């Protein structure tokens, strides 16, 4: 505590405690804003805050510098309590140039803090952003706490002895900004400096420049008293345990690796690069020492085709994609479904249709996951609500795929995939054993019968090549029950269609009942699925803080639905279904349960704001 006193005595800036703060870094896509944001988040994680992040970047890798389409941003909310979203409006905005200011200023909270690189506000950049006059002198900015910093000059000065030269000098600018924010928000410095040293171990001059800029940023705040008050958010009261900060794509990749170990099978991942799913491929390809085989196929169809082959050969087989790729995989999914092979199909949803907005969130593939195949082709569908739950639900998808010999669709989305949150690490020993035995005992008098179903699960046996005496053929043509021989028999097709449907429906007995978080006497149920979890829960909390009585629940299993869903829906006079689509779950609920559920829908390429959900709830409550 002595050091605290020292800081306070050496500077006139005083420290103010707050329970949460929302910060947004915005700049050119080449300005390193994602790095700055994720370093700030990690330092806050180490500090013990709860946090939630929302990265936002253009699909263009490097749109022309200084233009509006080139703006990339990273928002993080840190708090001393359990938060659920990255926050609606930033309290502090860092704008590295006029374009970044223009695309983000409207979101900044009234009276918030605006930090700008003043040297980027020259005539040329103002013009590129479409500003006729300098916005820093405008009325909109006058009500803000404006901190103007000549970041170019200060960064150049700071890194002059580090060995970088030319254009590389200004690349450390993001670390200067980060240093300033570390001072302003009383963040620990070590995690960032350690990260820089590790990350740039092979480029010591870059490491030195980044650290010099980072320290210079901190010192700038400290010595110039850039702000009268600095702000601190104390560590959060999280459940005891060991934590790491994880994105959904990483947690999903790790979950697949864990699932393969729990299934005692090698993992195969066939994929074709597509935003925002590619990071799963990248992450898995780092872990070949786990026996993970990743295969970058020639197209989406080959990606799932190779996975089907790997499944037939006895692997835990997975393919991952986003909406357009999901459409291409449709025919092959039906093959895996009718050959009854275990397979996980990951769809990291993005805004569609067609190429749509590849880096933006949407939940619009639900009906495709449910029905987007030819023929009668039901499949289990699971959706991931938060980044850390991707780990558990990848294991759950594998469990169902293997136990029931079926492809499983695992729905993620751009928000879950790229945002991060603290994850309390599970005890590895507590994870379930999901292994199933390969067929080893002949089930047909010396002949192997590939479609002799298990009477409990209705799954067929899995006999893999290399097993003597179990040679058999499977295929896309309708198969005779039990023998698996080609069959055009009318009654057999009815039986096989019914069997495939029953097998999937029956999984409802093997998944957790849905739990409702309800106030006594609530007559409104708010039900969601996927990445809207945080915004819905936060809105519910606000309702309760205002004394309103509400109930909420969130679906992870979308096919089959949990067995008690119908009873739950029917026990509330009002049901509200917020979704980032035009009403897909809503359709399913109304069709399956004949309830008068209402939708609250948005397809703007961004997550719900808490206030939006709050208003939607109020509207239903007060109607």
């Amino acid at each position, binding site marked *: 505590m002595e050091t605290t006193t020292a800081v306070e005595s050496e500077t006139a800036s005083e420290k103010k405690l707050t329970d949460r703060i929302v910060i947004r870094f915005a700049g050119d896509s080449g300005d390193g804003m994602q790095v700055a944001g994720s370093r700030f988040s990690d330092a806050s994680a180490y500090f013990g805050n709860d946090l939630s992040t929302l990265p936002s970047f253009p699909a263009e890798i490097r749109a022309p510098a200084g233009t509006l389409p080139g703006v990339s941003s990273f928002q993080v909310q840190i708090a001393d309590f359990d938060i659920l979203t990255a926050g609606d409006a930033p309290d502090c905005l860092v704008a590295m140039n006029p374009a970044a200011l223009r695309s983000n200023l409207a979101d900044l909270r009234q009276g918030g803090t605006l930090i700008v690189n003043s040297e980027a506000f020259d005539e040329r950049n103002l013009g590129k952003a479409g500003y006729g006059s300098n916005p820093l002198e405008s009325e909109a900015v006058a009500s803000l706490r404006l901190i103007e910093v000549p970041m170019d000059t200060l960064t150049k000065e700071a890194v002059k002895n580090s060995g970088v030269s030319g254009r590389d000098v200004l690349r450390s600018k993001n670390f200067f900004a980060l240093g300033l924010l570390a001072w302003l928000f009383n963040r620990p410095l070590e995690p960032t400096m350690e990260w820089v040293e590790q990350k740039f171990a092979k480029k010591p001059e870059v490491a030195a420049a980044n650290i010099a800029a980072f320290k210079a940023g901190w010192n700038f705040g400290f010595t110039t008293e850039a702000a009268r008050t600095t702000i601190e958010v104390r560590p959060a009261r999280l459940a005891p345990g060991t934590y790491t900060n994880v994105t959904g794509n990483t947690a999903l990749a790790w979950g697949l690796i864990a699932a393969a170990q729990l299934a005692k099978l090698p993992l195969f991942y066939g994929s074709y690069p597509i935003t925002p799913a590619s990071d799963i491929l990248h992450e898995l390809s780092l872990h070949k020492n786990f026996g993970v085989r990743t*295969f970058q196929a020639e197209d989406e169809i080959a990606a799932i085709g190779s996975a089907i082959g790997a499944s037939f050969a006895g692997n835990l087989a997975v393919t991952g994609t986003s909406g357009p790729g999901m459409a291409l995989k449709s025919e092959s999914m039906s093959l895996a479904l009718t050959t009854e092979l275990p397979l996980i199909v990951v769809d990291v949803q993005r805004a569609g249709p067609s190429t749509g907005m590849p880096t933006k969130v949407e939940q619009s593939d639900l009906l495709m996951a449910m029905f987007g195949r030819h023929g009668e082709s039901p499949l289990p569908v699971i959706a991931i609500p938060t980044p850390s739950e991707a780990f558990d639900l990848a294991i759950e998808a594998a469990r169902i795929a293997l136990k029931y010999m079926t492809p499983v669709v695992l729905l993620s989305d751009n928000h879950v995939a790229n945002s991060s949150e603290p994850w309390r690490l599970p005890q590895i020993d507590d994870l379930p054993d999901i292994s199933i035995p390969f067929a080893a005992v002949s089930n047909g008098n010396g002949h192997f019968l590939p479609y002799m179903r298990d009477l409990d699960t209705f799954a067929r046996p899995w006999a893999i090549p*290399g097993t003597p005496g179990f040679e058999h053929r499977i295929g896309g043509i309708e198969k005779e029950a039990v023998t698996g021989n080609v069959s055009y028999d009318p009654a057999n097709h009815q039986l096989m269609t019914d069997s495939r449907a029953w097998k999937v429906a029956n999984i409802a007995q093997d998944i957790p009942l849905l739990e409702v978080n309800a106030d006594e006497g609530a007559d409104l149920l708010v039900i969601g699925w996927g990445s809207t979890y945080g915004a819905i829960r936060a809105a519910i909390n606000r309702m309760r803080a205002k004394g309103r009585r509400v109930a909420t629940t969130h679906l992870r299993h979308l096919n089959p639905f949990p067995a008690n869903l119908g009873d739950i829906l029917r026990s509330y006079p009002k049901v509200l279904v917020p979704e980032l689509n035009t009403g897909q779950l809503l359709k399913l609920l109304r069709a399956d349960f004949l309830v008068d559920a209402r939708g609250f829908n948005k397809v703007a390429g961004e997550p719900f704001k808490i206030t939006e959900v709050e208003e939607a709830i109020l509207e239903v409550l007060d109607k």
Partner: protein
Amino acid sequence: MTAPTYSRSDFQTDQEVRWCPGCGDYTILAAVQNYMASMGVAREKIVFVSGIGCASRFPYYMNTYGMHSIHGRAPAIASGIAATRSDLTVWVVTGDGDALSIGGNHLIHSLRRNFNLKILLFNNQIYGLTKGQYSPTSEQGKQTKSTPMGSVDYPFNPISLALGAEASFVARTIDMDRSHTTQILEAAHRHQGTAFIEIYQNCNVFNDKAFLQLTGKEERAINRIDLVHGKPITFGGAGEKAVIFEDGRAQIVDTNSVDATRILVHDETRSDPTAAFALSRLSHGPYGPTPIGIFRRVTRPMYETGLNQQLLDARTRKGPGDLEELIRSAGTWEVKKEERPAGTPAVAPS
């Protein structure tokens, strides 16, 4: 481990073979079943994967592991098997529509990757199962149900295509010549990598006698150019025609008209594919003098060898995967019970 002794019947299934009577597929099936009996590989280690089309019914008739998959995708599915199970012997059965039209992309990529796959392309130059439309190997001008005024499509030369796709083994054989087919199957099996075999296969219902120029008694003597490794390429009843390589192309000449040293000596193992490609251009379909045999047979690392080596290297370098370590790899922090540690205050960086 030596494989059991088999006879052809060990590779037959109880399924009734349902190709049209007189179809060339029957002779290919017999050749393959016979060859498998002597191949020296245990039956359970063999997998047949096919797509869609008449040829693709093949796995149902082979008493091995097998998958009759979907149109064009057999090489992709087989790649997943080969990538993960080097202990298996994987064969792909496909047709001209399946491999060269709807599945063209998977075919070329499997050829360049060089998995240990044996691809049998039954080329009958017609769509049989959909009842007689022209295929990507049908001759230009062909009148079919979908081209009553004649096809305007220009056909593929499958051998040229395979060579262009970096195939390490490329051969052509004919359904009616069982002994030649068997030789090629054997060479393909011995080859470490993807083997591409085009089999001229007669569809007696929709495209009968398409290969007459190579199978008719008299025509065969005139037109069939047998490629024999290490031998000068001559053909015709008594070797009166020869192939020379001049002006950047293969040419057919009268043997007597050239010095014997100018006749191209066939070398399957040339690393440069130029000569093999030139030979593939001697004909653009079975309409005149056409080379039969192995065009190219070169050694190139197989995809799965590289992949498996990376797994081994990763394990040597990092040890077997440890889940506990993995989930902690991005850095962790502890939250203790009922304790709310005050934040570490910022201090001026040193």
